[in-house]
């Protein structure tokens, strides 16, 4: 088992807008939630806005600590969000990938990996990140997620704002090259599970899991 999640809960404090207010108010985002992720899993995580998809993925990636419950992690985790700002916009794609590669303890640089060519990044390696299109930025995000040679990839609605053709190319790459060829586990958070029809083997509906949201 790569990840074992047992009865986790997470609440967030709500900001006080009245100085006189003494009561602490909070919102419960994840409530008594459990799941397992195996090395052969392609999990589709479905939920409406505010259902807790991003929070759950961040808890799995250890960017947020759960209030209750426990998580057992047995492998490297990579988290890919929609945040395009999380790069150095004035640097080239090559310099960005070189910087993030330096943080990983890998012997082979991502820049020497064939996946760069498969993703089509080789065509715009020398371009500044800020001059890329949305689809190109998403490809660079995926390339960065491959640097740490993770065992499990958490994708948080990464096909948002992409046209149909780019969306299909990215989903096909993740399914065929990361899931099937490299045998990595995938958790795919989305509003609409039909975008990865016939690809996932488990479906978790957060709208039903966290009924008190």
């Amino acid at each position, binding site marked *: 088992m790569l990840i074992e999640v047992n009865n986790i809960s*997470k609440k*967030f*404090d709500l900001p006080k807008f009245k100085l006189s207010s003494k009561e602490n108010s909070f919102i419960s985002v994840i409530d008594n939630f459990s799941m397992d992720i195996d090395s052969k899993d392609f999990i589709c995580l479905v939920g409406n806005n505010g259902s807790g998809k991003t*929070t759950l993925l*961040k808890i799995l*990636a*250890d*960017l*947020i*600590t759960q209030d209750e419950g426990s998580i057992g992690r047995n492998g*490297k*985790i*990579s*988290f890919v*969000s929609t*945040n395009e*700002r*999380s*790069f*150095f916009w*004035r*640097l080239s794609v090559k*310099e960005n990938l*070189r*910087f*993030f590669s*330096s*943080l*990983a*303890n890998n012997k082979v640089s991502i820049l020497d990996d064939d996946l760069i060519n498969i993703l089509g990044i080789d065509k715009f390696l020398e371009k500044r990140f800020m001059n890329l299109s949305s689809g190109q930025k998403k490809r660079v995000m995926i390339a*960065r997620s491959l640097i*740490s040679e993770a065992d499990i990839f958490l994708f948080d609605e990464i096909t948002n704002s992409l046209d149909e053709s780019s969306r299909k190319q990215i989903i096909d790459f993740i399914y065929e090259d990361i899931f099937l060829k490299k045998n990595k586990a995938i958790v795919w958070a989305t509003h609409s599970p039909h975008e990865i029809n016939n690809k996932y083997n488990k479906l978790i509906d957060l709208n039903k899991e966290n009924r008190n949201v």
Partner: protein
Amino acid sequence: MFKSFKIFYAFLRKDFLIAYSYRTNFFISVITVFFLLFILSNLSKLTLNNEIFGDFKGNSFGYFVIGLAIIDLAMTISSRGAAQARELQLTGVFEELLLFRRSNAELMVSLFIYPTVFALFRFFLILIFGVIFFDLQINNLGNFALLMLVMSLSIISFVGIGLISAFFIIILKKGDFVNSINLILCIGFGNIIFPSEIVDTQLSQISYFLPITHSVELLRELLIGSISTESISTNLTYLIGLSFSFIGIGIISCLYAIKFAKIKGSLGEF
């Protein structure tokens, strides 16, 4: 150790390339050094032979220049490093860095590598411009090893103050006030433009707890003054104690801040 240097080099290279992409800003910062020295050289004419400068009464320009060089070094390191923490948090890069599972202490210190190199460049630029254009007399370069020790301890303490500022940035999302308070204390009590002894209150005792007080006194003695062994050993002892205290407090507080932000879920907030 080698892995840490690899990370430090990666941050240095990345920050240099970003700074290089704003070349005009770099040249303006060089020109401002010249004008600051020009102002100080005129100010020193007003204060020449003033008794408050003690051993440096005949060389108030030298007194001011060393003060300017060290406060520029201190503020550039602590404020630029902390500003980088804020920027990385604002953009979401900070979360990405944490995903690589490096030591958090190593990551936090890495934020201060380029600011330190840039600050050292400005430090030496102030001294070189002072010597070339304004007749600054530097007479004790023979104590190079001691000079390097004082510079290293000073940098460690300034990074420590910057890390304390980064702690507030991670927790409260703003930390500029730490650098503002530090600047006020340094100018008021740090022997930068006047000796702290002329502050005729108990408040002058604050100067003993500011690393910059001891850095500036040591550098003045080493670069433009006559060296007194007793004064050097006292200031050096204070500087060693303060450097290790500030860097220790800075690193521990940043580790706590990251843990706190993960619990609050506020790592990506700004």
